[in-house]
């Protein structure tokens, strides 16, 4: 059972603002998805199975540490809604208001 509260939280994490109708709509959809997947619960000894971490069987696809040509800056910025000649522009983010783990407010 997915509650409205859970759905609101998921929407907030995805930075989506949903109307009450939309929330109910997605809640019902989520519930169907979870129910569908719960078929797995009927597998006996599920815990003893190794989780499938990759659908292809090979491992160790590596690249050599040799630089290749990067994109020209103009091309890199071309698809951004807003930019100047060297930077992407986004609405002002207040420094350190929410800085994730690996970013340390830089």
């Amino acid at each position: 059972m997915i509650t409205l509260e859970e759905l609101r939280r998921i929407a907030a994490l995805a930075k989506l603002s949903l109307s009450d109708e939309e929330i109910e709509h997605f809640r019902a959809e989520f519930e169907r998805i979870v129910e569908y997947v719960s078929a797995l619960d009927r597998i006996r000894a599920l815990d003893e199975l190794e989780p499938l971490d990759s659908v292809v069987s090979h491992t160790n696809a590596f690249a050599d540490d040799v630089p290749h040509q990067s994109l020209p800056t103009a091309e890199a910025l071309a698809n951004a809604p807003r930019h100047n000649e060297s930077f992407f522009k986004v609405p002002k983010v207040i420094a350190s208001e929410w800085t994730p783990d690996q970013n340390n407010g830089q």
Partner: protein
Amino acid sequence: MQSVHTGDYEAVIGLEVHAQLLTATKAFCRCSTQYGAAPNTNVCPVCLGHPGALPVLNRQVVEFTLRMGLATGCTIRPRSRFARKNYFYPDLPKGYQISQYEDPICYGGFVEIELEDGTTKRIGITRIHMEEDAGKSIHDHDVDTLIDLNRCGVPLIEIVSEPDIRSPGEAVLYLQAIRQLLMYLGICDGNMEEGSLRCDANVSVRRRGSDRFGTKTEVKNLNSFRNVERALAYEIERQIAVLAQGGTIEQETRMWDASSGSTRPMRSKEFAHDYRYFPEPDLVPVEVSAEWIERVRAELPELPLARKRRLQEQYGIPAYDAGILIAERSLADYFERACGALREPSPERYKLISNWIMTEVLRILGERKIDIGSFPIEPERLAELVELQAQRTISSRIAKELFAELLSSPARPSELVAERGMVQVSDAGYLEQLVERALSENPDTIEKYRAGKVAVLGFLVGQVMKYSQGKANPELVRTLLLERLGHSDALAR
């Protein structure tokens, strides 16, 4: 180091260190990692998160991570995989960071730190995993926030310690040990100012003697050794004050603000720990064979603490000297090359080499902001200088002049000494004349000396050194003066 065991409480600290790896290219694409490049020049569809672009892991990232794992005694997981850590921030265009979650490549190791009292302490390493860095947000240059994605995708390792640290001082020692290891292994430049090495801390306090952990806070933004120490001291005191007043600690993330010298809670913390990790489907698992592990292990250099102990033993230098010399691998290499170049090696000469490095050499490196690799006096020439000094061919004052000359001359020390007539004068007859001159020009000194003011002896030696332009053998001058003043050497000392 000041104790943080304020009253009945003790601190429990664990550190999370992020180290940028010294690869030529990013973790999952072949854009350059060069620091300081023009904004948004080292970017491509993969690190910009363009739809359909697929990451491929840089082999060197695994290689470097294995080095750190093995150097810290970690177990290497034969098969590990990547996970997506989901969050939204403008400097992370994909909307997730590729990291490792359940199966980090290295786990269960330790780092040894040397405490001030000379004892060592083991700090456990919970795990070391591979991940990618985010880009850079610039807030103050424009009404908008500007984003540079050059750093996006640069490889990092995150080194997570066990909560084994008990004071801010220990935290600094641990961080220094980690930094030194990374630099010895040649996998990180250790530059905290440029952000190549970053540190967050988990801090709690508990009643002394308790084996339960208190509620912890995570303190971020500790980007220098000094800030680590200050922030932890502040946070520990804050928590103790809260508990002492009967309050409870709230589990939260706090930012260290160096200018106010305090930590403050970050807003929006309710989302901070819901990263909804899931396996990264775009990357295949990493398998590390026993052969790979053994090759990396065989190629590990001698590690800092082991080297320190060996330098003490092999060259008979004090622990203090050895600690300074091993601070950087290249400095210890320089010392050992100089020692190896001595024609007549002896502990006295090893110690002289160490003295030169710790004082004059490090001073010049600091003044010129260069590293030992670009230091103009090669170890072989320093060794020769030390031999001239040890053989009393030149006085220590001349040795200093010679050192200064060698900085700008490619000549050998012995050549310069011969050329400039710097050879130390030990001709007793000549020196006696100078002694007489010193006494006649300072007639009151004899009486002062006999009245017990032995300090004038040093003054007189100095005068003779001056007359001889620094070439007089100071020990001989001293002996001659003592004879002249009518005292036995033993009495004056």
